[in-house]
């Protein structure tokens, strides 16, 4: 097949930087996603119809439309909503992180909801029987247990998000996939470049899943089960 690996090897410093950017974008999106996810999960479980309806609508929209479409939508919508005459420098990063954060918020909401609902009813009953209000029971009894249980699915979401961040290449963010594509085009060596990109993604997803497994063990140390 006669592959020339020189281009890939020479571009290692560029790919390192691009991989770091990919991680940063993902981490930013996860941070936004966890906050939105918690709010939406609590809304989804609320007795108040309007809150529940709003949360369901949000989750349905972001899970039911392609991330690619959401990225474009957010990219063009933010300046419109904020009445920006011109785009600030590096605007694409803000748009990218916000779009991915909004999207992952919907998935994380469902993860949190399942986690909260998986906690035995007896826990709520015990908390309420001690005179705790609904929110005290949630905060001190239910959520700490739910958080521990959602670490594995949250890890999966983190990994999915890291891979999906390659879609941000579409708004010219020079993350890992974008950089590989540019170099592949310039050097006419697409196969080595995309193999290199795949390896970078693989290493990063492996690192995340190891880290998640470690957190799971550490937080589960009080359980015999």
């Amino acid at each position, binding site marked *: 097949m006669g592959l020339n690996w020189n281009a890939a090897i020479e571009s290692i410093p560029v790919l390192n930087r691009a991989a770091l950017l990919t991680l940063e974008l993902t981490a930013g999106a996860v941070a936004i996603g966890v906050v939105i996810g918690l709010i939406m999960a609590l809304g989804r479980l609320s007795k108040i119809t309007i809150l529940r309806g709003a949360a369901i609508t949000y989750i349905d929209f972001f899970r039911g439309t392609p991330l690619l479409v959401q990225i474009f939508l957010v990219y063009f919508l933010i300046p419109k909503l904020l009445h920006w005459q011109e785009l600030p420098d590096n605007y694409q990063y803000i748009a990218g992180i916000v779009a991915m954060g909004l999207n992952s918020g919907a998935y994380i909401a469902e993860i949190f909801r399942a986690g909260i609902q998986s906690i*035995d009813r*007896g*826990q709520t*009953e*015990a*908390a*309420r*029987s*001690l*005179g*705790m*209000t609904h929110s*005290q029971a949630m905060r*001190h*009894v239910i959520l*700490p*247990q739910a958080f*521990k249980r959602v670490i594995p699915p949250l890890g999966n979401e983190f990994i999915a998000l890291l891979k999906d961040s390659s879609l941000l290449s579409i708004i010219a963010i020079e993350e890992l996939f974008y950089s590989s594509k540019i170099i592949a085009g310039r050097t006419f060596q697409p196969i080595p470049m995309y193999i290199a990109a795949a390896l970078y993604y693989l290493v990063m997803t492996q690192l995340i899943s190891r880290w998640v497994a470690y957190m799971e063990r550490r937080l589960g140390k*009080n*359980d*015999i*089960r």
Partner: protein
Amino acid sequence: MIYVKNLHKSYGKLEVLKGIDCHIREKEVVVVIGPSGSGKSTFLRCLNKLEEPTKGEIIIDGIPLNSEVNVNAIRREVGMVFQRFNLFPHMTAIQNITLAPVIVRNMNKAEAEKVAMELLAKVGLSDKAHEYPDHLSGGQQQRVAIARALAMKPKVMLFDETTSALDPEMVGEVLAVMKDLAREGMTMVAVTHEMGFAREVGDRVIFMDEGIIMEEGEPNEVFSNPKNARTQAFLSKIL
């Protein structure tokens, strides 16, 4: 202390409680017995509104159990111990006990811990204060659960089949704690299958079947000379 008037509870078409009237006096120990499905646990759970009554009135310590405000006020005064312990698994024994006094009663932490240690000593578990529930036996967990309820200094304690989920050799240690409480003058309502306990510390036995109180009276009277045919049939099966 507790007045119950014409209490009804239905789940859809299924009527579980069909009109319960009773009055529980201060320092009285009332034991509720009856076959499974007779509504005795539902009755108990209505007393601190873990179940919403369909109809009827409950007044505890002069406070009617109707609005959400009253519910939390009442729950502070009414301790409950569950069949399946329901300890908080992410907290140590002492954390389980101090949580509610600190966040509900605004007790300071040091004071709450002092109270918790006294209660743990009372239930014989001083050495287990910093153990997590998963490292305790069923009997020990249930004793911690009793201490947790007592930490709120309740005026009434409700016991919902507190020994039914325990291995036989652990039933005694939990009953011993309940007997101590009864002797100290705690007002108690206990749903139980432990007839020995009912006989020894009960001031009154209530026999429930099909959602109503079929018979009630002093334990010796009810056990040795039951008047209702249902009570007779039930007791002949278990005694």
